[in-house]
């Protein structure tokens, strides 16, 4: 939930942001050009000091979707107990988003996970590499066009048999 005063100030500061609410969960959709300034405003002027999570949704084949990827930043305020979700929609081939690491150090591993699973590049990240899958893995597993069982990478290893010597 978010206080209406904060939401009014947010709407005044960022007219391009589209706020909405669902069952007392507030969320705004911002274009990627103002994403970093919106996050910085929320952290500094609205006291959202806790970055809860950064995640991504793939809307491939989703009914009524207009963009493919939606990166979501979940923010919380420890002082005022408010929460808000900031969304930014991306389409191929422009899968680059400014990194939130200068604002919150905790964004480091969250962004590595989103990069590992979806392939979204975070510009300005100090160490953007895979975090869960092996380094030489080539696909992005949580995309909707990647099959659950994988494409054979999990069994692409040499077989050790009981040969002596």
């Amino acid at each position, binding site marked *: 939930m978010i206080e209406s005063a904060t939401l009014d100030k947010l709407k005044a500061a960022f007219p391009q942001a589209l706020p909405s609410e669902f069952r007392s969960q507030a969320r705004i959709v911002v274009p990627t050009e103002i994403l970093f300034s919106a996050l910085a405003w929320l952290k500094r002027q609205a006291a959202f000091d806790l970055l809860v999570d950064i995640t991504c949704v793939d809307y491939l084949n989703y009914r009524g979707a207009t963009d493919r990827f939606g990166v979501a930043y979940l923010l919380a305020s420890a002082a005022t107990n408010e929460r808000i979700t900031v969304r930014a929609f991306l389409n191929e081939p422009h899968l680059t988003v400014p990194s939130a690491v200068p604002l919150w150090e905790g964004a480091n591993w969250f962004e590595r996970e989103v990069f590992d699973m979806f392939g979204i590049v975070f510009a300005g990240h100090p160490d953007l590499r895979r975090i869960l899958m*092996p380094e030489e893995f080539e696909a992005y*597993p949580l995309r909707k066009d990647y099959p*659950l*069982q994988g494409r054979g990478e*999990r069994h692409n290893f040499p*077989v*050790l048999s*009981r040969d002596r010597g």
Partner: protein
Amino acid sequence: MAIELPENVVVSKLDALASWCRKNSLWPMPFATACCGIELMATGASRHDLARFGAEVFRFSPRQCDLMIVAGRVVMKMLPVLQRIWQQMHEPKWCISMGACASTGGVFDTYAVVQGIDRFIPVDMYVPGCPPRPEQLIQAIIDLQDKIQAEGTITGEEFDLPSRQRRKRALIELPVLPSPPHPTLR
């Protein structure tokens, strides 16, 4: 590697003696990755004591073990580590695949989990369960001891038998047929 013997030495009783010594002093190498590792610890604890059966210590160095117990799911990132540990163990060595995930991949038929470590490591004993009870693991160790006593040789020739080398039929991949289009989901 075991002992080199000249041809005129009778080894039948020596095989039985060597197998008896080896089976009653199986020191496990616990390769515990997930939940089955907890049951492995429970089996080694005081109520279900694995040391009664010769597994006196769980050595974490592969150079000092002869039985590797793979307990838990093995992901593709961990499999080269598993293979390296297996290669570092001295012969004669055996492997127990504990739990459903190590044997077949369990419930995790995903892009990251290896569907059975016996695709890449020679396994001697499988323990079903999720997780198997300590009594099941103890039964597997007893069965492995019986297998060692029945088939063991002092020179380790039982590992050269074709039955040990042959690739398991279940691991031959069947062709995946294309599924028909779902009536409602796109």
